[in-house]
């Protein structure tokens, strides 16, 4: 599924230059973005987009690269969010960034445990394990008041918000840069992980695990690694979703619909690509807005909200099927095709 680059020669020098310029432009845009767009855009669109991209990235490592289908993304996000809350509440001396890392590690450990069945079970039978995680944690975090500190509405929120090392990241700009920093760092780390031995092991297992075992890939270890790393990233994404985007979260914020949303992100964006998670997240967060605007424009508020939601749902489903039929490798592949086409038009 991933693009395999088998050229032995290096890319032409000018292309490398172009890539560097592109990277610089993206960096500049990302850094300057808050000064161009309204606060509404930052709070309601860009921050959730970044967090969903991160969640997509996390799931993509497991499903897209290691080939282990998971319907429990929401559960691992939930674990990350609740762990961050517990750490900030009970160990206030631990600064937020470290609390996030520890929460990610806890989510990773949980992912490892629920990944254990994958050493014996394959394919569809495996979704039962991830779904078990989903239902178990929904029950656990709602059943025992310890997890939400006895809050009357069973929600969790950080009392100090996003402040650490004397910095206050509670404003829209602060939340944006905080999220951006974490997302960039984790993307960079995942990118390197994929390029290395670990990523290659995962892809070998995805393509055919029996063959991978025959050529000496440590299948069990690599599968568990995939579960742990993926849940680590999902856990941090969950904590960000709860505290950098929503502000206060509950079990419902990470229900089964969230798991599906993250799965759709990687299907639409492209399984087994890093940028696919970003493209898919952009699609998933912008499509409802676009449909809203379209219906506002067409019917100017005459259609009731329930009907609109159902129409959106149906359109979403049709798009997923259409993508799977037309371009099973997602938006990422479409982008690659365009790029080769333009290269053919303007040969360097």
């Amino acid at each position, binding site marked *: 599924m991933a693009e395999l680059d088998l050229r032995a020669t290096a890319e032409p020098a000018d292309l490398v230059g172009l890539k560097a310029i592109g990277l610089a432009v993206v960096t500049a845009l990302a850094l300057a973005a808050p000064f161009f767009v309204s606060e509404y855009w930052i709070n309601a669109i860009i921050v959730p987009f970044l967090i969903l991209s991160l969640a997509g990235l996390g799931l993509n490592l497991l499903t897209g690269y290691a080939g282990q*289908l998971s319907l429990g993304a929401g559960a691992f996000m939930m674990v990350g969010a609740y762990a961050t809350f517990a750490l900030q509440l009970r160990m206030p001396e631990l600064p937020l960034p470290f609390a996030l890392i520890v929460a990610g590690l806890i989510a990773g450990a949980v992912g490892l445990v629920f990944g254990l*069945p994958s050493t*014996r*079970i*394959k*394919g*569809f*039978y495996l*979704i*039962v*394990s991830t*779904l*078990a995680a989903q*239902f*178990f944690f*929904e*029950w656990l975090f709602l*059943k*025992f008041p310890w997890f939400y500190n006895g809050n009357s509405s069973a929600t969790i929120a950080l009392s100090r918000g996003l402040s650490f090392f004397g910095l206050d990241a509670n404003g829209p700009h602060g939340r944006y840069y905080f999220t951006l920093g974490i997302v960039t760092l984790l993307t960079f780390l995942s990118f390197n992980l994929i390029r290395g031995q670990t990523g290659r092991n995962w892809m070998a297992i995805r393509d*055919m695990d*029996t*063959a991978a075992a*025959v050529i000496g890939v440590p299948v069990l270890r690599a599968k568990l690694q995939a579960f742990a790393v993926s849940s680590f990233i999902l856990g941090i994404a969950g904590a960000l979703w709860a505290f950098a985007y929503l502000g206060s979260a509950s079990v419902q914020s990470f229900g*089964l619909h969230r798991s*599906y949303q993250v*799965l759709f992100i990687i*299907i639409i964006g492209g399984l087994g690509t890093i940028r696919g998670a970003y493209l898919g997240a952009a699609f998933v967060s912008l499509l409802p807005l676009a449909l809203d605007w379209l219906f506002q424009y067409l019917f100017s508020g005459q259609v009731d909200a*329930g*009907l609109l939601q*159902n*129409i*959106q*749902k*149906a*359109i*979403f*489903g*049709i*798009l*997923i*099927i259409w993508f*799977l*039929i037309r371009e*099973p490798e997602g938006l990422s592949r479409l982008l690659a095709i365009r790029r080769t086409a333009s290269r053919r038009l303007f040969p360097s």
Partner: protein
Amino acid sequence: MSMFLETLIGGLLAGAMYSLVAIGFVLIYKASGVFNYAQGSILLFGALTFVTLTENGVPAYGAIAITIALLIATAIAVEKLLLRPLTNRSPMTLFMATLGLSYVVEGVAQGIMGSQVRALNLGIEDLPIFIGDILISQFDLMAAGVALALVIALSLLFNRTRIGIQLRGVADDTRAALSLGIDINRIWQIVWAVAGIVGLVAGLLWGARQGVQFSLSLVVLKALPVLIIGGFTSIPGAIVGGLIVGAGESLAETYIGPFLGGGITPWFAYALALVFLFIRPSGLFGERSIERV
């Protein structure tokens, strides 16, 4: 002791309702190798159509006939627009396509027929009956009877008719079936239609129990552990699995639940399924696959 028996029998009867949902999955998985996530929304679609028709004064038999006709049309559309273009794709792609399909079916069904809760009265009175000193729900007994009748009908269809033999041929070896001139696309349509009708029966029973509404489509999540325990490819497995899950859930809620603060049913079935999987990775009755490089 009578409390234990009551819990067990109640659980087994509820399990028969799970089996009904699971059978629809098994039919489709056997014939087309698709794990059909949309079975839950088909169930909702069937029950919702029936309720809407009867509410608008259509007599019950007419409503059933129209609903079945719609389900057959859906099956043909699914085969033409989804299965055919996705032939030879990986099982995971097909699964995700049915996830998309479930969105479409739910969106369209609820968009046209509304998403509020509807009451469904099948004319079965839910009066408890006593056998000895054990209390049994009459409705559950009826549902179990329907499940039994459906299984007998299906096994007759599979073993005694020409179409059934073709179906089994396709399930056994698709390529061999193709080379013998079996029209595989037609078989897919038939199987999806039959699964739709099984879904309608399950949808009506579940709908009478808990009202016809969106949560009906989540019954699919109840059926999943059943399938895991019974194996994806076996109808007897679906039944045994359903009974095990039903009895296990109800016993666990009564005897283990109080120690954990109750409400453990949503995940208990999954935990049970995982235990079974560790012992038999392809279910109790599933076919063991041999992998070659």
